[in-house]
């Protein structure tokens, strides 16, 4: 177990920067999720933590010790690769054994350790099968066993669940979290799936364009996103982003008018679908919209409304809400739950307004 620190880590491939000047601290025993769209540098970051890719600049520290030049094996990291890669020509047992191949343990200790791991992951019946004879979920378990059998300082996972079907992902998600909490191993988990990130991570680091946009608890990331990118990337249905202008303490866009204490100028208003209310079409300060579609989710429904200029706004409404497509309505956001972003994407802090 170890704390991991990245200091001004960069990775360039020729003129292309995959990761730029990244600072990251992962505390001992933490489950950190690196979240971002494909090509955002999250896998490259993981590979640099693992020691599989050397950073172009900067340092990687394990427990305060510089390991930038140290090999993956000597860092004592364990890794689960995309689609739970295993040696295809070796049985599950031999796959797990290769993890201990270069360790100093004697034969009996190794056997004991493997037996423990096998019991913990319940893969006894799979031991003599080849990876090609296992299902995706079974492969994932064996890859996890192969990783934890070394009792690694850090457990690194690169989208291990992405190739599995939805139901299996759901159950393996909680299994992995449970295992991580029992073992207390520092874990870095890379994914592009926001639900995986929200449900699994102690903290989430959101990456985009090779930069860390924000790092924080799922609550912080969801409820107070630092940038427009984070706000738009997390949440399902996604946050509504409405472009407009702040004039004299009010945000204006079309006929929408929301009281906010922010400096004047162009800005983007962010409102979660659950923080929007449907009002009468000509209500004071509301955004006039037409109903575009209605989606029933069982516990709630989502109204997708279209404003002038084609902007789609999503609003969560109670079950039983009925509306015709094309019906005219007004939309009013809850001013206390609104977020404001400057044109560059940075969040503009809002002071609570007296007028609201």
């Amino acid at each position, binding site marked *: 177990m170890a704390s991991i620190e990245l200091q001004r880590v960069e990775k360039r491939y020729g003129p292309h920067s995959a990761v730029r000047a990244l600072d990251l601290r992962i505390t001992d025993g933490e489950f950190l999720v690196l979240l971002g769209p494909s090509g955002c540098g999250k896998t490259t970051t993981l590979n640099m933590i*693992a*020691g*599989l890719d050397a950073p172009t600049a900067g340092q990687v520290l394990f427990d305060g010790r510089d390991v930038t030049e140290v*090999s*993956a*094996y000597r860092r004592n*990291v*364990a*890794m689960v*690769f995309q689609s739970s*890669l*295993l*040696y*295809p*020509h070796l049985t599950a047992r031999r796959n797990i054994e*290769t*993890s201990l*191949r*270069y360790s100093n343990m004697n034969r009996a200790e190794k056997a004991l350790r493997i037996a423990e791991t096998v019991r913990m992951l319940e893969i006894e019946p799979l031991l003599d099968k080849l990876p*090609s004879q296992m299902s995706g979920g079974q492969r994932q378990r064996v890859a996890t066993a192969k990783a934890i059998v070394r009792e690694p300082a850090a457990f690194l996972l690169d989208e291990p669940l992405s190739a599995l079907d939805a139901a299996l992902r759901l159950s393996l998600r909680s299994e992995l979290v449970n295992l991580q909490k029992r073992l207390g191993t520092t874990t870095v988990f890379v994914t592009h799936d926001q639900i995986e990130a929200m449900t699994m991570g102690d903290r989430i680091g959101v990456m985009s364009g090779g930069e860390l946009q924000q790092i924080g608890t799922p609550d912080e990331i969801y409820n107070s996103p630092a940038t427009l990118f984070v706000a738009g990337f997390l949440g399902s249905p996604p946050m509504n982003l409405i472009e407009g202008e702040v004039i004299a303490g009010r945000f204006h866009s079309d006929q929408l008018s929301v009281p906010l204490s922010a400096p004047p100028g162009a800005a983007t208003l962010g409102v979660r679908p659950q923080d929007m209310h449907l009002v009468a079409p000509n209500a004071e300060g509301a955004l006039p919209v037409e109903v575009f579609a209605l989606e029933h989710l069982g516990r709630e429904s989502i109204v997708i409304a279209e404003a002038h200029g084609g902007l789609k706004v999503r609003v969560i409404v109670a079950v039983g809400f009925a509306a015709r497509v094309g019906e005219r309505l007004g939309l009013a956001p809850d001013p206390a739950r609104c977020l404001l972003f400057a044109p560059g994407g940075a969040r503009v802090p809002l002071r609570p307004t007296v007028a609201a």
Partner: protein
Amino acid sequence: MNRNRFLFVAVVLALLWSLVPIYWFCRMALLTPLEIQQYPWPLFPRAPNVASFWNIFGYDYILSDGTRVPASGQANQIIRGLFDSIVVSCIVTLLTLLAVLPLAYVFARLEFRFKSVLLFAILLSVALPPVSTLIPFYAMYIRIGLSGTLTGLVIVDLTITVPFVAWMLIGYFRNLPPIERLARVDGYGRLAAFVQLVIPLAKSGIAVAAVIAFLFAWNEYTYALVLVNGSTANTLPTAISGFLFQDPQPANLAASVVVTIIPPALVAYFLQRHVGEMNLVDPVR
């Protein structure tokens, strides 16, 4: 139904195309010299005998009616050729694999400078017609005393097998899953990962590569004809061609052709599982 019928006809035609010549010389090998001269040719040997197979290895054979069929005058060349062919083919196969395995692996899995230029240089030699290098090799071999030697023949064979097999294996290695990263986390060095993990993983592809190298060296005729024919370092294909020119013996010729087919047939038989398993696009299923 129509599709199946078409397939059936196509398969039958393909089988006729490849099997009829084989049947024809097997039949010839089992005829007596007298029967071969008959016209029209007998389609089936009425009294098949294995005289020719004894003759080409230097033994007389007495038929059931008491006729003695004398040993072939070229028995020495056939025995010598068989031995030389086995030696040359095995050495060529071994050296080809030794050279090509690391070469193909490096080109398939590592990045380095001038990679595409070097790759092109290797592949260019596949495109070169073998005959175009024949005269230069001959001239060179005369000077350095390699003409008429097995060493010389092995070297020339390698100039064909190495680029060709490399070309095939590069594609195969490229499609293997990225287990090197896994191996590095497990503590393997690059060389150890290659020898202990990649080679066992790639055994089907390597087996097919070995068959191709072996068959090429075994069947090679043009180089052998120019570089070693007439010397003590004669291989089987050129030795057999002697039956055509020196002392026409159709039955003996046919028998030695049958003998020539046996080793590659055995190789193909024992490696057919790998040949069937090998899939260039998705090597590991």
